[in-house]
């Protein structure tokens, strides 16, 4: 057997440009223009991998993106490795290394192949039925399954490539550059529409461009020559942009499409550095023309999956476009005229055709006659009943079909072959159309689904619209384009078309055999190893919906989404269940049409650009002073500042002690700030907070609690009255945007009569909080002319003042329970004021502290953190904060919900304090709280929400929520942990300075 199956040279292949590549570690050669598949076929290699479930040897089946079998791993064990690449799509380049997937230890000897012999015990739903029970065994099954199955290996190193996103707006997008797409793009652009034409292939012209037969002519020229001229013309049109190697992945509503433009995948690795690998195009088109073509159907018969079995159209493409013969002893199997086109092509190139098996009894088109004239044997009214050859087909058995096509009759005939082409007719590629929300209709004549109802300004033309012959395409296209683009005429109205294709077809979804179905393997979904037998089993077991059958048998659930076999699955269901195809509907095709790598999806948003992060004006100082950071919303907040060998615990203990013993300083700039102005500002605050605001004097601050309309705590913060009609509200760091959104919602939609204006000013100010017994002394040094006496500047008040020439607002408010001042300055002065505070505080050992210490200090005081101690199921009453809920106010957001039958229950979870029996024992946040751990099942009373070791109290403290906790003071409870039980006692949540003496100390 020869290893060079190149036939007559093809103009698409550059035989002067030799390229070496490796497949399974062995070096081969191909030419520029080859795909990996065509180059392997030229080297007489069909066996590419093993199937998913039965590990059957599988080869190249197609010549396009619908390929189910020939999927390979590229550049194994490198950072550029990529699994599940279709050999039929990858263009070869110098140094390409591909290897088989899904086989262990090698493609030629595969342990999993034993599944093939075990297949009677591996029916549809096998994984569901067997591996799901008992649940505790799953871990063991998983190891076994993952080792022996699985599709390829994902890379373990960071992706070295660069990806980009790009927005494109156009008048008309044409998808697919076959004959229909070329005509549409040219017509659109020539009529002044800004047009974009995309095609997944590296060349233009679809399947017509390699059509060399005298049987298909346009204006008396061979169709490919005619099209070539058209292509040369469109390249010169200014307002037409052409993108090849560009595959549309998704077609969303309102003509929004995603396409991947592949820019470097065809280049040798060393030429890729620094270049963008893929561009994800985000296309918004006023009009979309789908010219996505059609996919040839396989035929469903016993053992229709062996290496060497291809689609007939693929064999034609390999010979015409790539100049490669797929076999030396070819047999074609068909139910329509397409295989005769292939046969004529092969014959003209001198490739041997042993026979054509045709399901149809009577065929007499010009194509058929030409074959007969050349003495190629045609078995009319026959079907294949079996195939032979383990790693490559070597023989088929055929039998005659009965009149009704349901049985086979007569005796078996054997034919030797090394390649079998099959043609079951064509399926319009309507995937993108249905993704866009389009509805299909079923055409009974030739059993195809075609576009019916369009959900947006779009149209399908050519074979994706069910026009399969050259005449149909060219006759309909002018009419359709004139209507769709609203133009008077096109240049394609009086073409002279000659096409000898006869449309007669004998459609049998599942071809009969002489064996019982249980003994056969007629594959429907090659990638997932689903057979017709599995589909019939699913129907016997009661599944009826196509979506259920799909999931149960896994038909159509591979990376190819069953592009080849889905129609047959429907056909078999419809025949078995006796329902009509049109009524069954199809399964949903989901984006992406072909898989996208993650890099393409994230584009430039990798590493530090993965998500936005916000830095305060003082951020650089925190970095210089070795702060560890935590993410709060989008903010990076200083978490703690470890010194020398300190760990987090040590640092937090030191910071916490310093803040209470002398002075601490915190960057509080991230708290949300909303500027509120207008004559109704006070009334507005009355309505959004639970407490009363009308009487708050100018220059005073007040803590407020905001509820949702369902009565649950939503946010909290201090709001200051700056002037008669002017307030500044602070929110939690994470809640700033949603609070503003909610307030705007009420203002605009419920209370448009209120004169109130809201502005987010979070980023405008830097906020520096100095706390501790020495804070007053420090502030008096920083702002010497400010009277800090308790009479002039009491707790919960504010002053406008200046630090040198810098205007600032100083609030005397406290989240730690210590005497505390918050300086707000224009953000760009933040760092210098912070530095000044540090300098003036040096003699008092002023200690910067982070969010962890802040949390600890407030927990000592029993102050809640919304989102940590609350979880959208806590009312203010549950939090023991009844004091902040106004009884006098007629209404505020959430008020009515506070006395719904559910919110007044006594046994709601309520906030309490917890102390451990062993004061050194620190509880885990999130730990469950129970009364009696011996009962089974144990009743969960609640959980720990905040827990710390307090250096100031020298004991462990915690906050938690417990059912009916308010009435459990002094109650002993248990925290069951993995290896121990911790005894705790319920206490008041305020652990330190209940009398608030330290605020004025």
């Amino acid at each position: 057997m020869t290893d060079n199956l190149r036939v007559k040279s093809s103009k698409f292949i550059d035989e002067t440009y030799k390229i070496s590549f490796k497949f399974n570690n062995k070096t081969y050669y191909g030419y520029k223009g080859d795909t990996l598949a065509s180059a392997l076929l030229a080297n007489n290699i069909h066996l590419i991998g093993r199937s998913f479930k039965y590990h059957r040897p599988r080869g190249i089946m197609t010549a396009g993106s619908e390929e189910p079998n020939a999927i390979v791993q590229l550049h194994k064990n490198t950072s550029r490795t990529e699994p599940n690449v279709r050999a039929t799509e990858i263009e070869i380049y110098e140094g390409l290394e591909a290897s088989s997937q899904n086989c262990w230890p090698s493609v030629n000897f595969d342990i999993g192949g034993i599944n093939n012999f075990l297949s009677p015990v591996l029916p549809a739903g096998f994984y569901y039925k067997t591996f799901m029970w008992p649940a505790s065994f799953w871990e063991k099954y998983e190891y076994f399954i993952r080792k022996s199955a699985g599709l390829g290996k994902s890379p373990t190193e960071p992706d070295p490539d660069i990806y980009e996103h790009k927005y494109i707006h156009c008048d008309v997008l044409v998808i697919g550059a076959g004959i229909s797409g070329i005509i549409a793009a040219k017509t659109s652009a020539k009529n002044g529409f800004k047009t974009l034409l995309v095609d997944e292939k590296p060349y233009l012209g679809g399947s017509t461009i390699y059509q060399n037969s005298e049987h298909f002519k346009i204006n008396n020229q061979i169709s490919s020559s005619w099209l070539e001229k058209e292509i040369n013309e469109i390249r010169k049109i200014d307002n037409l942009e052409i993108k090849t190697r560009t595959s549309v992945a998704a077609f969303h509503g309102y003509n929004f499409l995603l396409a991947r433009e592949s820019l470097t995948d065809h280049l040798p690795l060393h030429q890729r550095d620094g270049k963008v690998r893929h561009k994800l195009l985000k296309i918004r088109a006023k009009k979309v023309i789908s010219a996505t073509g059609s996919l040839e159907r396989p035929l469903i018969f016993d053992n229709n999956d062996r290496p060497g079995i291809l689609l007939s159209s693929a064999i034609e493409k390999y010979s015409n476009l790539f100049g490669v013969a797929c076999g030396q002893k070819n047999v074609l199997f068909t139910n329509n005229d397409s295989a005769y086109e292939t046969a004529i092509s092969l014959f003209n190139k001198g490739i041997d055709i042993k026979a054509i098996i045709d399901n149809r009894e009577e065929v007499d088109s010009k194509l058929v006659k030409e074959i007969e004239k050349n003495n190629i044997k045609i078995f009319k009214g026959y079907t294949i009943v079996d195939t032979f050859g383990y790693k490559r087909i070597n023989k088929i058995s055929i039998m005659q079909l009965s009149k009704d096509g349901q049985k086979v009759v007569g005796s078996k005939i054997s034919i030797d072959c090394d390649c079998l082409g099959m043609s079951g007719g064509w399926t319009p590629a309507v995937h993108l159309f249905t993704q866009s929300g389009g509805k299909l209709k079923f055409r009974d004549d030739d059993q195809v689904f075609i576009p019916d109802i369009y959900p947006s300004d779009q149209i399908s033309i050519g074979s994706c619209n069910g026009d399969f012959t050259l005449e149909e395409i060219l006759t309909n296209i002018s009419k359709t384009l004139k209507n769709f683009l609203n133009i008077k005429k096109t240049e394609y109205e009086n073409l002279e078309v000659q096409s000898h294709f006869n449309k007669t077809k004998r459609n049998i979804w599942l071809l009969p055999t002489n064996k019982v179905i249980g003994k056969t393997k007629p594959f429907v979904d090659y990638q997932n190893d689903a057979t017709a037998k599995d589909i019939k089993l699913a129907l016997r077991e009661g599944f009826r919906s196509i979506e259920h059958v799909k999931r149960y048998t896994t038909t159509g659930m591979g990376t190819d989404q069953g592009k080849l076999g889905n129609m047959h699955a429907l056909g078999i269901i419809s025949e078995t269940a006796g329902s009509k195809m049109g009524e069954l509907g199809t399964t949903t095709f989901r984006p992406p049409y072909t898989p996208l790598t993650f890099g393409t999806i994230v584009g430039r948003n990798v590493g530090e650009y993965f998500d936005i992060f916000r830095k305060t004006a003082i951020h650089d100082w925190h970095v210089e002073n070795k702060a560890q950071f935590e993410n709060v919303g989008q903010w990076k907040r200083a978490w703690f500042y470890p010194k020398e060998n300190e760990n987090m615990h040590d640092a937090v203990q030191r910071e916490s002690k310093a803040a209470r013993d002398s002075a601490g300083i915190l960057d509080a700039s991230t708290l949300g700030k909303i500027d509120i102005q207008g004559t109704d500002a006070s009334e507005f605050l009355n309505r959004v907070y639970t407490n009363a605001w009308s009487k708050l004097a100018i220059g005073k601050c007040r803590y407020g609690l905001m509820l949702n309309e369902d009565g649950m705590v939503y946010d909290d913060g201090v709001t200051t009255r700056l002037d008669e009609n002017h307030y500044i509200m602070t929110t939690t760091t994470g809640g700033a945007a949603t609070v503003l959104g909610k307030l705007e919602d009420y203002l605009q939609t419920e209370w448009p009569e209120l004169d109130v204006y809201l502005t987010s000013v979070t980023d405008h100010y830097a906020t520096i909080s100095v706390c501790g017994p020495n804070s007053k002394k420090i502030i008096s040094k920083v702002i010497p002319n400010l009277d800090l006496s308790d009479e002039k500047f009491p707790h919960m008040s504010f002053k406008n003042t200046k630090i040198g020439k810098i205007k600032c607002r100083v609030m005397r408010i406290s989240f730690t329970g210590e005497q505390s001042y918050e300086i707000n300055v224009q953000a760009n002065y933040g760092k210098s004021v912070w530095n000044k505070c540090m300098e003036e505080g040096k003699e008092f050992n002023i200690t910067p502290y982070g969010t962890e210490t802040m949390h600890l200090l407030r927990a000592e005081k029993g102050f809640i953190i919304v989102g940590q101690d609350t979880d959208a199921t806590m009312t203010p009453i549950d939090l023991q904060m009844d004091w902040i809920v106004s009884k006098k106010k007629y209404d505020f957001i959430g008020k009515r919900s506070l006395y719904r039958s559910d919110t007044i229950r006594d046994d709601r979870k309520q906030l309490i304090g917890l102390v451990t029996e062993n004061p050194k024992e620190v509880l885990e946040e999130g730990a469950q709280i129970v009364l009696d751990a011996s009962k089974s099942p144990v009743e969960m009373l609640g959980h720990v929400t905040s827990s710390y070791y307090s250096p100031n109290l020298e004991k462990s403290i915690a906050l938690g929520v417990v059912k009916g906790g308010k009435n459990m003071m002094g109650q002993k409870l248990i925290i069951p942990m993995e290896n121990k039980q911790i005894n705790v006692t319920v206490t008041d949540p305020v652990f330190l300075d209940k009398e608030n003496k330290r605020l004025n100390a």
Partner: protein
Amino acid sequence: MFLIHCPYCGEREQSEFKAGGEAHIVRPKQPTELSDDQWAEYLFMRKNIKGVQFERWVHTHGCRKWFNMVRDTSNDEIKAIYKMGEKPPTKY
């Protein structure tokens, strides 16, 4: 992804907007007068129609204005857009 015509800014990508649920549910003027059931009706019950639905939307990453939309939820067709406070269209 929709193209939405903000009544204040014009046509913009859906990613600039947020949906805010069913429109024309008026917050009761006197919540305290309502029974638990009546309050629950306002608080929790939404129609969630398959078909033509009246919705609230906000141009979050734009003018921050709320407005109403008539949308067919079965095919995402936007049939009408009108400002807050305006009467819903009867024909669309």
